Structure formats: structure tokens, C-alpha cells
């Protein structure tokens, strides 16, 4: 009864593409302005329930704002933060890892020890502490989640570079007079990319959850901007009177993150069979 992995991955990919499309088209699709209050319609239940209306298919929140519209705009926040923070972390980490592994020596030691120190902090604790100092907001969240995420990429890139730098094709390129940057770019980087792609995919999933957690704690994207985590924070005080406020944003996160994770599983099996199968 096991469904083939690539078919599951296809569904996951479809979920990612659809959510990206919904996020992009949010202004056209949203039934209402996500920030518009309508206190007369506050806590309207979803349309199929008694008292619901199709004007607000998934109901309204405590200020009468339309839940569907906020979910659509919230998708933008999640996807933007997820992808840009991972790109930042990946570029930073791979760059440092390549240089560290290729040249070795003091720089290598220093970078790797710095990585050890950073991994001593639970990631969320470090993010909270830094955001407490620099202040919340979309840019700062991307920056903090991106900069704190470099270690894994650096370790992978460094490891691969160490094993490659004395291989024949690299020695050959060097003998032909290629510059270091050229060797790293043309000969080492392409060999590092498969593992990095796999790790990055799972990181996008984790980063989306991290952003939701930070926003849930009131440290991520400040209101009234719709973020799924912030919506859950608002919803948790109305579990008895407005359960839909706590349900739908969580389902949205689950759908997107699940989609990314199954695509990640498939990428790992296809691109990099050496990486350990976690599940």
C-alpha cells in the first residue's frame, strides 16, 4: 500500500507551486482587504456554519478582518522569509565553507570554532535575543534567520572541498594555471551543490516554522501585517469562541511545510543517495 515516492513528491511540488501562485495573486484573489476592520462582523464563523456567510468563507477574526484574505497575504510572508533566509544562509555558508576547506589553516580553524560556538545556542534563543536588540520586522527576521543558519552549509561545503581539493581533476586544473576562484567555482562548487540543495530544501521548511514561531511570540512580523504565526497568536485567546482562528493558519503552515518536506525527501533520494535517510 506504499505510494511511490516520486508521486508523493509531485503532490508536494504542486502544493508549493499553488501556494506560491496564491501568494503572488493575493491582491486579485482576496475577497477583502486583509487589514480592514469590520467590528460589526467580528468573529463570524466559516460560511458552512450557522451564522456564517460566503462573504467570509473561512470567517472573520476578532477585529472582523477576513480570514481567507489574511491567509493569502500571510502566505507571502512565510514564503518570502523562508526562501530569502535560506538563500542568504546558503550563499554565506557555502562561500565560507569553500574558502575554509580549500585554504585550511588558521582561517579554517577560526571559522569552524565559530560554528561550534553558534551551535551551542538553541537557534530560537539566539534569534529571540538578537531580535530583542535590533527590533522585529520582515527584514530583520530574514537577516537573523539567514545569518544564524550558515553553519550547516559551511560544514557540508568544507567537507566536500577537503575531499576534492587533491583529486586529479582539481590538480589538473591547477596545473593548467587556473586561478583558485576559478577552481572553486568551476570544479568544486558543482560537486557541492547536490547536498546543499537537499539541505536547503529542508531548511526552507524549518525556516517557515521558525518565522511562525517568532511571530507567534510577537517577535517576528509586527501587526497588522498578516503572518500565519501572528494569526495563531491572536487566535489562541479565542479557542472557545472562534476555533477557526487557531485552526486554519496552522493547516496552511502544515500544508506548505509538508509539501516542502516530501519534495526534500525525494531530492535526497535522487540527488544525493549518500546523505543519510532520516526517515
Amino acid at each position, binding site marked *: 500500500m506504499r505510494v511511490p515516492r516520486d508521486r508523493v513528491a509531485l503532490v508536494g511540488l504542486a502544493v508549493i507551486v499553488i501556494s506560491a501562485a496564491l501568494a503572488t495573486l493575493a491582491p486579485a484573489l482576496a475577497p477583502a482587504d486583509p487589514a480592514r476592520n469590520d467590528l460589526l462582523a467580528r468573529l463570524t464563523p466559516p460560511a458552512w456554519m450557522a451564522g456564517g456567510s460566503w462573504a467570509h468563507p473561512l470567517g472573520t477574526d476578532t477585529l472582523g478582518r477576513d480570514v481567507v484574505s489574511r491567509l493569502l497575504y500571510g502566505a507571502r510572508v512565510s514564503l518570502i522569509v523562508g526562501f530569502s533566509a535560506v538563500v542568504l544562509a546558503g550563499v554565506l555558508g557555502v562561500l565560507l565553507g569553500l574558502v575554509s576547506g580549500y585554504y585550511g589553516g588558521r582561517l579554517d580553524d577560526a571559522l569552524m570554532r565559530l560554528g561550534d560556538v553558534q551551535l551551542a545556542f*538553541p537557534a530560537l534563543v539566539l534569534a529571540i*535575543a538578537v531580535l530583542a*536588540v535590533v527590533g522585529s520586522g520582515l527584514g530583520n527576521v530574514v537577516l537573523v534567520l539567514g545569518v544564524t543558519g550558515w553553519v550547516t552549509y559551511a560544514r557540508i561545503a568544507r567537507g566536500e572541498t577537503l575531499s576534492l581539493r587533491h583529486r586529479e581533476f582539481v590538480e589538473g586544473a591547477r596545473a593548467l594555471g587556473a586561478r583558485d576562484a576559478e577552481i572553486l567555482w568551476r570544479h568544486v562548487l558543482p560537486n557541492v551543490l547536490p547536498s546543499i540543495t537537499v539541505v536547503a530544501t529542508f531548511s526552507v521548511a524549518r525556516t517557515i516554522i521558525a518565522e511562525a514561531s517568532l511571530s507567534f511570540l510577537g517577535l517576528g512580523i509586527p501587526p497588522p501585517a498578516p503572518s500565519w504565526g501572528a494569526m495563531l497568536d491572536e487566535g489562541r485567546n479565542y479557542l472557545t469562541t472562534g476555533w477557526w482562528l487557531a485552526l486554519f493558519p496552522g493547516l496552511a503552515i502544515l500544508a506548505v511545510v509538508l509539501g516542502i*518536506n516530501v519534495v526534500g525527501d525525494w531530492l535526497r533520494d535522487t540527488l544525493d543517495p549518500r546523505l543519510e535517510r532520516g*526517515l
Partner: protein
Amino acid sequence: MRAFLLRRLVHAVFVVWGVVTVVFFLVRLTGDPAALLVDPSATREEIAQARHALGLDRPLLVQYAEFLRAAPLGDFGLSLRERRPAMRTVLEHFWPATAQLAFAALVLAVVVPIPLGVIAATHRNGVLDHASRLGALFLQSMPSFWLGLMLILLFAVALGGLLPAFGWGTPSHLILPALTLAAAPLAQNVRLIRAGMLEVLQHDYVRTARAKGLAERGVIYRHAFRNAAGPFLTVSGLSLGFMLSGTIVIETVFSWPGMGRLIVQAVPGRDFPVIQAAVFLFALVFVAVNLVVDVLQGLLDPRARVFGGGA
């Protein structure tokens, strides 16, 4: 073994030094720590006064040296809100509330998966095998705090208050937060033990044990599981670290009076001595756990003494 222990210890001390340094520079990220270390409503004169009183007008290196001396002793200054030593406030929240929650969740996430993982491996493609695969995938794809909200919705709201949703004190208050915190690592550990067991079960010594006519239960737990347990130990250590940071969100969801909720509440009030002390303690526990796991690993498996060098 002694050289290995010494090396791990030196590494841990180095990491703690790095942690203290990061905490020191944290409040200096934006330039003036005085503005962060006094009451947010302070006037410019009061800030200047505080800058002098806290010694922040001295050269940076002098301040750093002073901090390096004070921080490991737990001296992070006075909490702005409570006007008493920040570390004492943090410790009172860590013990017993956070320790209780993290320990309960750790027991759940480490003990429960052992029989489940073994069954999933011995009954490959059985119901439990599939359920644990789906469970692991779903649980790691949802934010733990949302799982917490859904459990509250189910047990405290829909089932008419079967379990309390908020607060601390009785064992029944512990059930939902501990379950929420343990759920994702629990499911993942089932998969991990299953994978380890599947590998070990192929080995010759398992066949030999069976050939000797040992009872299957003895073969599974005495011969196979023991050898599959090594990587599981490492991951359990990492789970504890994961749980520590998990407590931050989970304590907030369940109004659990621990260190995680304390650090979240300290942010809007900009109570930086408390934030510094809490970040330091979090990292310290993290480093200690990693050290213990490394040493245990070294004791169990001599090969790890040579190769185990990571954080």
C-alpha cells in the same frame, strides 16, 4: 580515554567562552548598551548616569574583561523589572518549572519510541511502521505550538475540560505541554530506532544468537537493540537541546511559569540582564548535555573517542 575526556572538556570550556563573548556583544549590537540596560522610560540624564554607574563609559576591553570574570559566576546585574539579580530570577524559573517540563518530555520522547521502533522494525510494513512514518512526517511539518493549540482545543474545550489548558502545579497540568513538546522527537526517534534495528538485524551475530535457540525477545533486546542504541543516544542528547528551545514556545502556549516564558516576557520590557542571563543558561545547559552525550558515547563505543570531534 583520559585524553579524550580532556579534549572534550577543553572544547566545552572554549565554547562557553565563545557563548559569554556573544552575550557580551549582543547588547552592544546597536551601539549603546546603556539605553538597553536601564528602564525604557529613563531620561537622557538618567541614561548617562546609569552608563557611569554600570561602568559602560570605560574602555570596551576593560568592560569585556570584567564581564568575562562576572558572567561565569552568574552575575548579569539586576533585572530591570524585579530589581534583583537577573540570574536568580532565571534560575527560579528554570527550576523546577522548565526542568520538570523538559524532563517529562524527554522521558516520553526517549522511552516510548524504544518498543515502538523495535516493533516497527520487526513488523516491517505493518500498521505501526506506516503510522510512525506518517506521524514523523506530519509532526515535523507543523509548528509545535500549533499542535499545542489543537490539543487544548480537543482536550480542554471539545472534551469539556478533560485536561487543564493552562497553568502549573498538578501532574495533570503537565500532560498536555509535555505531550506537545515530545510529539515530534518521539515520532522521529521511532523511525531512528527502526532504521538502526533493521541494519543490526542483518548481522551475523543476530543470526548466531537465533541459531543458538535464544528466545526472540532476548535476541531483539539483548543482542540487537544494544548495538542499535549508540546513534539513538546521540540523538536523544540532541533532543534535549531541541526541547529546551521548544520550551520557549510551549511554555508561552500553556502559560507554564518557566524560563522560556520568562525570556519571551523580558523582550517587550527590554529586560536585558534577564535576557542575557537566560541566553547564557540555555547555552550552558546545551553545552553540558552535549558533553555528557559525547562522554557516554565514548564509554559505550571506543571508536567514537577517535572520531567524535563535532560540537
